[in-house]
């Protein structure tokens, strides 16, 4: 069936919005993902990542705006969209009371593959995702990493041209995370369009061609990871003081030697400022000493998602006060 034609596996959205009650989980959301590329949706809990995924995978109807997946409108032709997508959401989307093989076979049958093909495909995927030794074990006895791999296998049953992964590595240990990243890179090599959400800048960095940064339901920035980091990230210098009365003096001292405006965290007694290559820790220490600040700790670190957010959205109120919206990034969905 049309296998000789170049398959359209692009994803596009324009002015997408979703309202729950009087809260907009997503608003004015635009997206352009070419066939075969990887997009990272980056944001904190409640930023609208899951809402965006749910709309694009036909699980939720948009309140406004429109989106197409593989050339089909998500609201108008959901059946056609479902034929062409695979989804792994945050919560376990496999059946714990079935074996790994039975899960994949059932999903194959629901894609209307003939029984034999579904069985063969299940065996093939289990081997590909190194689960062949656990094929007849109940999924509830799987480890977190195995369960994630099976979830991924489940979304690969029909070899969909477009794949959606909602926080695929949240709750995984570093080793399992690396394993999954390798797998995903292999997949993308095969020309699959991949949209994944993540809270980790590093994950987006390793996998994504482009990143859309979401903040409180709105796209805050778009670009390649390198562009984003160059624009908003970079290294930081962090000073910890012993009493909060020293915070202003520490901030003034840091401002003289750092590469950008310092940010004060009164609760943690921290002052953070962007560091450039020429920022030297010894100079920071000297500046602090001159200002008479009794610094408890002075160090450099890599930019975090928080830093990128801070430079984009101002004070990091969002880091502590998350709007807990049941439909979006439900905390109970973060299972390992």
């Amino acid at each position, binding site marked *: *069936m049309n296998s000789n034609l170049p398959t359209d596996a692009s994803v596009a959205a324009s002015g997408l919005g979703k309202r729950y009650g009087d809260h907009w989980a997503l608003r004015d959301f635009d997206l352009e993902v070419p066939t075969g590329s990887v997009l990272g949706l980056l944001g904190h809990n409640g930023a609208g990542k899951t809402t965006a995924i749910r709309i694009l995978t036909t699980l939720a109807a948009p309140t406004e705006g429109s989106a197409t997946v593989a050339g089909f409108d998500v609201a108008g032709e959901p059946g056609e969209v479902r034929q062409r997508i695979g989804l792994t959401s945050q919560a376990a989307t496999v059946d714990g009371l079935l074996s790994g093989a039975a899960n994949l076979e059932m999903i194959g049958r*629901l*894609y209307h593959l003939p029984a034999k093909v579904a069985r063969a495909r299940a065996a093939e995927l289990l081997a590909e995702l190194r689960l062949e030794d656990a094929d007849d074990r109940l999924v509830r006895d799987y480890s977190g990493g195995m369960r994630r791999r099976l979830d991924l296998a489940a979304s690969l049953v029909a070899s969909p041209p477009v794949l959606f992964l909602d926080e695929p590595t949240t709750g995984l240990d570093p080793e399992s995370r690396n394993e999954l990243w390798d797998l995903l890179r292999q997949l993308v090599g095969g020309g699959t369009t991949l949209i994944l959400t993540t809270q980790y800048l590093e994950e987006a960095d390793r996998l994504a061609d482009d990143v859309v940064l979401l903040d409180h339901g709105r796209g805050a920035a778009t670009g390649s990871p390198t562009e984003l980091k160059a624009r908003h990230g970079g290294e930081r210098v962090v000073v910890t003081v012993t009493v909060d009365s020293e915070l202003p003096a520490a901030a003034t001292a840091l401002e003289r030697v750092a590469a950008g405006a310092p940010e004060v965290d009164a609760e943690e007694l921290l002052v953070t400022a962007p560091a450039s290559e020429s920022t030297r820790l010894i100079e920071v220490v000297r500046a602090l000493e001159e200002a008479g600040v009794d610094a408890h700790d002075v160090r450099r670190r890599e930019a975090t998602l928080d830093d990128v957010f801070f430079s984009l959205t101002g004070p990091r109120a969002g880091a502590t006060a998350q709007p807990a919206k049941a439909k979006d990034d439900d905390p109970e969905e973060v299972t390992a």
Partner: protein
Amino acid sequence: MNAESITATLPTTPAGPARLRWLVSDAAVLARRQFAHIRQIPEKLFDVTLQPLMFVLLFSFVFGNVIHVPGGGDYKEYLIGGILVQTLAFGMMGPGISMATDLGEGIIDRFRSLPMSRPAFLLGHLTAEFSASVLAVAIMVLTGLVVGWGISSPPLEALAGFGLLFLLAISMIWLGTLVGVIVRTPDAVQGIAFVAIFPLTFVANTFVPVSGLPDGLRQFAEYNPVSAWAAGVRTLFGNPTAIPDGSAWPLEHSVLASVLWCGVVLAVTVPLTLRAYRRRTTG
């Protein structure tokens, strides 16, 4: 087999009657999933297997010689109709729990993102639950026959008796499904079932004739749908009903009243379930 060959075997969304074929085959796949669950957790079937078996044995041997059926007849002959109805009434629990469990987990998102027939999930659920009810009826009838119960009505009436049992089973499965779609946790289903179904099946003619009940309770029992169902089943199977002349209308016309009560339950639960299910699984 490689990825391309899989994509090539994927059928396109059908139109017309082929849609119905997808509905049936998808529902069968999903019903089979629930049967597989029972293989893993056999306790799931206790309420429709061991429990009715236990009730038949306990009541017939413990109360069998103490309770006398007014108007004559053997207590075991009287008892089975009541236990059949009670078990099917509690049969709302299984569908409620399995629906609440599925909707509370991510698996429903997986199903909804697949190109399967939309109503297949509900149909598969109803099919699996109805099979459990059929099994429960079979177990009770067989146990009943062993302890000395029997069907003494003409074949057509007896057949109608089974028809009434299955209509009741379907009504209670819908009721349970409605509860399962509305509540947040499977445990809540159990709580609701206990609080609502337990008194309903006891303040009725399930185990003892209503004529002996004190005023107030007696009137409640007379108009309790459970009484109508039990009396209807007894009537159709030709068992003693212990309904004296001049009883309340639903008892005098128990078969008609039974069917009407099932109609009421279905007329309320089917549209409410579909609406709540749609609301719960979209947006």
